[in-house]
């Protein structure tokens, strides 16, 4: 084997009392995909940030092309040919797509931006990642999925020798993800070293040449090509085997709890949506990026009120002009973008968990502290939230634990209709199972669950029924017995026959 492009030796890093990395080592060779897996909070992102010059290690050394180097800044990392796609989106919303792709590396002549080159080169990378937006479009106007693709395009445009991707597919649907995986293989064949982090173990299995498993900030084991299997990875990650991945059981379905008729969302005013959810049902909502799934949930939760249409909850007509109205009707929404929509990053776990239930536990407007504490004591172990304490600011939790906080906050409201937008985005398999279990439990207790997911495997595994959106309208509905990857994808990319069948 060739010599490694990049090596990390005995890297340690701690944050105000938390030891995130305890002497981790890792090496990346040219022309390989190295997958890094581990539970939430294992230290993957921290290690990657160190490799890409965003953070500095407390101890340990970095070796680039056989020489020990300090990578003190992003710019230095780029000079060594190391690029990182962060786990969270990091784009300047007020700039256009082209500007974001080349931010910090603009082609220029003595400081003057070469706008023409940016545009032509941006077009090329955008096409490579399969995103059909103009380089002049404002990033703030794009959906999360589209923004994620912009991030990928940005990293691609570096022509890096080592390309690190921290959960690039977490907000991509299957279709886009496949484009990305093809792209990665192409890069690999050209000799790029790729570090790939994902909680979608199926993806990893199909892609990785090598797997490095981290646990609690330490190396937990290494798997080579033929050793890579779902079971082996899980074993190393959690230290035990995990049985039956999707704990789905069909339930008795009851009354109609949610009845949506003639709903027009603001994002797709030209399309109407009708559907029903029954008690005890788990319904998946599938579709491509930008199909309008999030907009549909936002409308049902009153965040962006619908233009038209009627919604009945348990037979009663409800007005959904604000989230509070939706909450009063028994609806809860776990939003797609936890950082911006779900969490108060600087506030503690306690405050984040209780915020949505405060108004029901108040006495004359005063906080009920005892109930608030009780809620934390119930939710944290139930969801296995790993935090230094109830007061730890959630910004210091790992992504998966943050996600659990958002889910816990809504679980606490005991909703009758539970809407979840990408509930397992960035969540490790252990936590995923917890979330699935919770969804099951809710359904078993008579709630209706509607969840959006871009992970087809998850849709197939967890749904009693799948609704598929295409360009803002329901292109079809599949019962569990008819579910298959092909059937969903066909509806998501909208073969015209099915459109006719769905109600308009």
């Amino acid at each position: 084997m060739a010599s490694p492009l990049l090596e990390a030796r005995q890297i340690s890093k701690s944050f105000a009392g938390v030891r995130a990395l305890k002497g981790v080592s890792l090496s990346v060779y040219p022309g390989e995909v190295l997958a890094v897996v581990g539970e939430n909070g294992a230290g993957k992102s921290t290690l990657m940030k160190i490799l890409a010059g965003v953070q500095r290690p407390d101890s340990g050394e970095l070796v680039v092309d056989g020489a020990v180097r300090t990578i003190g800044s992003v710019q230095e990392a780029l000079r060594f040919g190391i690029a990182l796609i962060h786990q969270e989106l990091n784009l300047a919303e007020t700039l256009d797509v082209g500007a974001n792709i080349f931010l910090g590396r603009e082609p220029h002549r003595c400081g003057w931006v070469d706008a023409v080159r940016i545009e032509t080169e941006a077009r090329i990378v955008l096409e490579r990642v399969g995103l059909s937006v103009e380089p002049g479009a404002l990033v703030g106007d794009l959906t999360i999925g589209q923004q994620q693709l912009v991030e990928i395009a940005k990293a691609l445009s570096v022509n890096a020798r080592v390309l690190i991707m921290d959960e690039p597919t977490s907000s991509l649907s299957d279709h886009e993800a496949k484009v990305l995986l093809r792209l990665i293989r192409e890069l690999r064949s050209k000799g790029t070293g790729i570090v790939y982090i994902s909680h979608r173990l199926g993806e990893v299995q199909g892609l990785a040449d090598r797997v490095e498993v981290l646990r609690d900030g330490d190396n937990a084991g290494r798997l080579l090509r033929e050793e890579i299997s779902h079971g082996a990875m899980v074993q190393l990650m959690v230290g035990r085997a995990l049985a039956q991945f999707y704990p789905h059981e069909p339930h008795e379905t009851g009354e109609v709890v949610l009845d949506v008729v003639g709903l027009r969302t603001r994002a797709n005013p030209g399309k109407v949506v009708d559907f029903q959810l029954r008690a005890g049902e788990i319904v998946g909502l599938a579709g491509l990026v930008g199909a309008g799934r999030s907009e549909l949930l936002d409308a049902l939760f009153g965040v962006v009120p619908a233009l038209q249409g009627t919604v009945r909850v348990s037979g009663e007509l409800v007005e959904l002009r604000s989230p509070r109205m939706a909450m009063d009707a028994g609806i809860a929404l776990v939003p797609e973008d936890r950082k911006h929509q779900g969490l108060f990053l600087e506030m503690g776990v306690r405050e984040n968990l209780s915020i949505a239930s405060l108004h029901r536990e108040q006495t004359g407007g005063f906080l009920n502290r005892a109930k608030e504490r009780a809620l934390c004591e119930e939710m944290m172990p139930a969801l296995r939230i790993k935090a230094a304490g109830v007061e730890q600011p959630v910004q210091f939790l790992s992504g998966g634990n943050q996600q659990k906080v958002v889910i816990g906050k809504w679980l606490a409201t005991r909703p009758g209709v539970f809407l979840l937008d990408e509930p397992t985005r960035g969540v490790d398999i252990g936590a995923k199972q917890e979330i699935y279990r919770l969804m099951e439990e809710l359904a078993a207790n008579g709630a209706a669950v509607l969840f959006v997911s871009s992970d087809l495997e998850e849709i197939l595994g967890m749904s009693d029924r799948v609704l598929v959106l295409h360009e803002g309208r329901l292109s079809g509905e599949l019962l569990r017995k008819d579910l298959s990857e092909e059937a969903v994808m066909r509806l998501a990319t909208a073969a015209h026959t099915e459109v006719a069948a769905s109600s308009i």
Partner: protein
Amino acid sequence: MKKNLGIFGLLVVVCVVTALLSDSFLSAYNVENVLRRSALFGILSIGVGFVIITGGIDLSLGSVVCLVGCALPWLLTVQHWPLPLALLAVAAVSLGIGLFHGLLITKLRIQPFIVTLCGLLLYRGVARGFTADQTVGFGTEFKTLRLLSTGKVPFLPGFDLPAPLFFLALVAILAALFLNRTIFGRYLLALGRNPQAATYSGIPTQRMTVLAYVISSGLAGLGGVLFVLDVNSAQPVDFGNFYELYAIAAAVLGGCSLRGGEGSIVGILIGATLMQVLRNTITLVTTRNNVEFAIIGAVILVGVVADELARRVAARRRAARVLLSSSAG
């Protein structure tokens, strides 16, 4: 609380230094004066603190102080309105202004800076309009009413507590309870941290924002009344000028972040007191007062910088300790 330690330390240092340099600083008369002034500015600062906590800003409060401060004597002595009616009118006006700001900001989504800047220009202009730029005041009348601001309550032998202190105490206690013990206070803090997440959490963000502006203007109105009762007359051109800056500075010194979501009432009180003690110090200790503002500016800056540096040293020490203990363990 920890966040307020630095500024509290600065206050203590300034007090000790002044007491050493001037015998009069700790005299009952002077302490009473400083307390009264701090109380008046404290009320304004708490008000603007609420707005800052939601991530907004209120530049209009100096002008609200002016409007109310001119309107009250004008209504009473020029228009000869009965006292309850006049008080009701100024209360309605100041709360109404807050409502107006809040609605423009939430319903029309105009930037708070713009809305309240226009307010700053507008309300003083209105006061100048209806008084025709004349000074208005109570003269020798309304002595009893004025006791609200000038009155004293015996406390220790030879040391009385100025009346505005009681208003401040009331306002501060209510504000602290509201902010820390009610769900609405929690909503305000959350909304300041992340308005979008607040919306997604079912917090009535618009109503809470409006409420913050109403509180701010309302307290500015109360401040205006107390100020004019204290000073006895108001000149529309300069009454309350720059008070918004002092109030905002006090709030920010006291730990409110202009990015929203942070702030404590105790901190705001310390900040407001510090500003007043500093001004008092300068008149007591120096014989020139034209560098007063320069000194205030410099002291605040030095204080904030020292606070920041101290925090860094502490953080570094803590980090070193963690490293040590972990490598030992």
